[in-house]
C-alpha cells in the first residue's frame, strides 16, 4: 500500500514537471467551453499555435485519453494516475487538449463491444484527434422513445444500404464519422431489431444541415441518409443487438453530463457575485444572495458526489443509477447557476454576444439531451425504486 502511494507521489511529481515544461501559457486559464475547445477531425481548427503544440504533446503521450490502453493510442494509466493527471491539469488550469464524442462515448463502447480490428482502426484516430465523431441516435419521430427509430439499414450482402434521417446531431455538419442506431429487422419487437453502425459522413448520400439554436449557435444538425453504402465491417457488436451498445454508451454520456456541469471550472459563482454585484448589492437584495448561496450549496454537493463516484469506482461499488442521478441534478443546477449569473449582470447580461446570455440559453439543452430529465426520472422510478409501469 505504502509503496503504491510512494509510486503515486513520484508520478505526481513527474506529471507536474512535465506539464510545467509542456503546457504553454496560452493553453492555461482559458475558459473551458465548447468554442474554446479543440475537437480534432479531418478539418481540425486549432485555437492558436501554442494550443496546437499542447494538443500534439499530449496526444504523443496518449494523454488525450489517459486511461485507454497504449496499444489503442491511450496513456495506459490506472484510475489513480488518471485522477492525478486531471488534478494536476486543473491545478494549472490547463485547457483540455481534445474534446470529442469519440473520447466520451464511442471509445468506451468500442472498448466493450468492438472487435479487435475495430478497436485498432478507430481508437487511435480518436486519441490523435484525426476523426471527429457525431452521435446519430435521435430522429424526428424518435426522441425519448428512441427505440422507435426508423432509419433503415438493409443487408445487401457485402454492405448495408442506409436510408433515413437523424436529428439534433451535435456538430453533425462538422464531423467526419457518425455512430448510428439503425433498424436492421423491421419485423422484430422494437428494441430487438436495432443495430449499431459506424458511417463515414464523407460517403455519398450523407448530408448534414445545421440547425440554429436559441443561443444563436449552430451546434447541431439534421442528418440525412440516402442510399448510403456502409461496409459490413462497420457493424459494432451483434446484429440486431445494437440496443445493448446504445444503452451502455448512454451511461457514459450521462456521467459526462453529470460531472461537466458542476461548476468546477473557471470562476466560481461566489467570486462572480462579488465581482459583478458586490457585498453591498447582495445585502440590498437578500433574495438574490440566498439563491446564490443555494446554488453554491448544490455545486459543492455535486462536487462531493463526483468524488464519491470516483471512490466508489475504485472500491468497485458504483451504483448503476449514479449516471441518472448526477445527470438530473447537475443539469438542473447548471440552469439555475446560469440564471443567477444573468441576474447578477442585470441589463448588461442581456447582451446576446456575451457569455452569460450564451450559457443561460444553452444550459437548458442539457436537461433535454442525453435522455431528458423526465426520462432519467422514469429510469430511477422503474429501476432504482422498482415502481411498476402505468
Amino acid at each position: 500500500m505504502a509503496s503504491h502511494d510512494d509510486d503515486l507521489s513520484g508520478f505526481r511529481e513527474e506529471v507536474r514537471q512535465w506539464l510545467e515544461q509542456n503546457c504553454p501559457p496560452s493553453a492555461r486559464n482559458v475558459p473551458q467551453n465548447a468554442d474554446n475547445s479543440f475537437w480534432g477531425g479531418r478539418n481540425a481548427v486549432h485555437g492558436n499555435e501554442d494550443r496546437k503544440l499542447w494538443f500534439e504533446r499530449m496526444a504523443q503521450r496518449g494523454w488525450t485519453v489517459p486511461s485507454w490502453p497504449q496499444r489503442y493510442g491511450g496513456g495506459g494509466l490506472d484510475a489513480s494516475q488518471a485522477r492525478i493527471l486531471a488534478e494536476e491539469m486543473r491545478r494549472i488550469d490547463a485547457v483540455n487538449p481534445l474534446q470529442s464524442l469519440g473520447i466520451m462515448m464511442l471509445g468506451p463502447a468500442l472498448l466493450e463491444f468492438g472487435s479487435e480490428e475495430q478497436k485498432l482502426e478507430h481508437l487511435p484516430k480518436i486519441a490523435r484527434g484525426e476523426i471527429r465523431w457525431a452521435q446519430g441516435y435521435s430522429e424526428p419521430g424518435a426522441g425519448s422513445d428512441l427505440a422507435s427509430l426508423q432509419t433503415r439499414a438493409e443487408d445487401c450482402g457485402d454492405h448495408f444500404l442506409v436510408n433515413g434521417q437523424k436529428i439534433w446531431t451535435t456538430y453533425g455538419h462538422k464531423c467526419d464519422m457518425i455512430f448510428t442506431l439503425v433498424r436492421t429487422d423491421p419485423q422484430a419487437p422494437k428494441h430487438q431489431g436495432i443495430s449499431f453502425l459506424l458511417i463515414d459522413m464523407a460517403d455519398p448520400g450523407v448530408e448534414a444541415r445545421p440547425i440554429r439554436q436559441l443561443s444563436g449557435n449552430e451546434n447541431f444538425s439534421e442528418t440525412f441518409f440516402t442510399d448510403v453504402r456502409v461496409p459490413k465491417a462497420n457493424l459494432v457488436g451483434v446484429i440486431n443487438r445494437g440496443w445493448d451498445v446504445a444503452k451502455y454508451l448512454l451511461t457514459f454520456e450521462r456521467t459526462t453530463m453529470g460531472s461537466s456541469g458542476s461548476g468546477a471550472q473557471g470562476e466560481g459563482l461566489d467570486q462572480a457575485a462579488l465581482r459583478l454585484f458586490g457585498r453591498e448589492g447582495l445585502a440590498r437584495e437578500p433574495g438574490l444572495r440566498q439563491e446564490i448561496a443555494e446554488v453554491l450549496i448544490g455545486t459543492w454537493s455535486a462536487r462531493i458526489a463526483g468524488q464519491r463516484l470516483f471512490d466508489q469506482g475504485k472500491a468497485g461499488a458504483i451504483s448503476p443509477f449514479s449516471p441518472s442521478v448526477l445527470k438530473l441534478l447537475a443539469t438542473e443546477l447548471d440552469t439555475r447557476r446560469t440564471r443567477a449569473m444573468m441576474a447578477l449582470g442585470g441589463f448588461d447580461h442581456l447582451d446576446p454576444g456575451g457569455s452569460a446570455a450564451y450559457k443561460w440559453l444553452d444550459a437548458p439543452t442539457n436537461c433535454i439531451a442525453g435522455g431528458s430529465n423526465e426520462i432519467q426520472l422514469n429510469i430511477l422510478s422503474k429501476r432504482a425504486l422498482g415502481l411498476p409501469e402505468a
Partner: protein
Amino acid sequence: MALVLTQDEVMLVDAAKGLLSREAPLGMFRALRDSGDPLAFDPALHRRLAASGFVAPNVAEADGGLGLGASAAGLIMEQAGHVLAAAPLLSAAMAAGLIGKTASKAQKDTLLPSLITGETTIAAALDETARHEPSVLATKATRNGEGWLLSGSKTAVIDGFGASAWLISAEFEGTIALFLVEQAAAGLEVDKVDAVDSRNYAKLSLKGTPAMRLGDGDAGPAITAALDLGRALLAAELLGICDEAFDRTVAYLKERRQFDRVIGSFQALQHRAARLYARLDLARGVVLAALRAIDADDPEATWLASLSKSVMTKLSRDLLVEAVQMHGGIGVTDAFDIGLFVKRGRAAGELLGDDYFHTERLARDYWRL
C-alpha cells in the same frame, strides 16, 4: 479518506442495525412516548448500547475510548434514526468532544469512563436563544475563591433533563469558557421542555451556581468543534430518518391500490419519488464527507458540517411532507408511524441550526457574500 465505508464500518453498521432492531424497535419509542416518562429514554437501553461501544465512540483511545471518531458516531446515529431510538447518543458524543478538547487529564479520568458505559449522561448547554445562535452568550462566570459561579440561562439543552451533569458555556472576563455543573448544584433550576418529537430537552436557570471550569484557555474553538460534530451527527440521524420514511413510502406506493392499480404506477408520484431518491443519493455523500472531514481535522470541516446540516434539514423537510402526502389519510393519523418520523425530523432539523441558519453561515462566513 475515501467516501465509501471501510470494511470495519460496514461491520459497525450491521452490528448497530442488528442491536437497534432487536433492542429498540420503533414500537419501543412509541410506547415510551405514550408512557409519558419524563426522562424520555430508557437508561437500560442506553447502557446496552454502551456495552456494544455505541455510546461516545469518539472518545480518543488515549482517553480510554474506542477512538472511532465522528464517522462511527454518525453511522450509529444514522441507524438510530431508522428506529427513532430514544437514547442520549447525541449529547454523549458532543460531551465527549467537549471534554476531550478542553478538560485536564484528571477531569477526563473522572468524567469519561462513566459516560462511555452509559452510567452517567452529560448534556451540553450552549444555546441561549430559541433559534440557534451560538454567538449569543449572556451567561456569566465569576470567581469564587478557588471555584466559579455561573449566572444566566440556557435553552434547547439536548438530553438535558435528568442529566448527571451539564457542560455550560459562559463568558469570563471577555473570553468564552466551559464549565461543568453537577446535578445537585445550588442555584440550579432544570425545567423539562416538551417538544413535538417527545424527546428529552431542558431549560436551565443558573443563579450563582457553583461550577468547575474545564481547561483554562479560550473554549471557543472547542465549542465550535462540538457544535460542528453535533450538526454532522444530526445530519446523519436525519439521513437515517429520511431513508426509513422514504423506504416505507415506496413500499406503500407498491401496495396501495386505487383506480384498479397500485398508486406507484402513476407517473406523477413516480417522478416525485425518483427526485427524492436522487437527492438522498447526493446527500449521503455530503454527510459522509462532513464526518470524514471532522475526523481528519480538515480546516474545511466546520463548513462541511454546515453544508451537511443545511442539505439534510432541507431534504428532510421536503421528503417528510411527501411521505405523509403519498400515504393519504392514514399518513396524518397518530397511530401510523410516519408521523413519528415527521416530528423527529422537524426537531432534529431545528437543533443546532436549520438550513436557513447554515446557508446563511456559509454565505456570510465562508463565501463572504
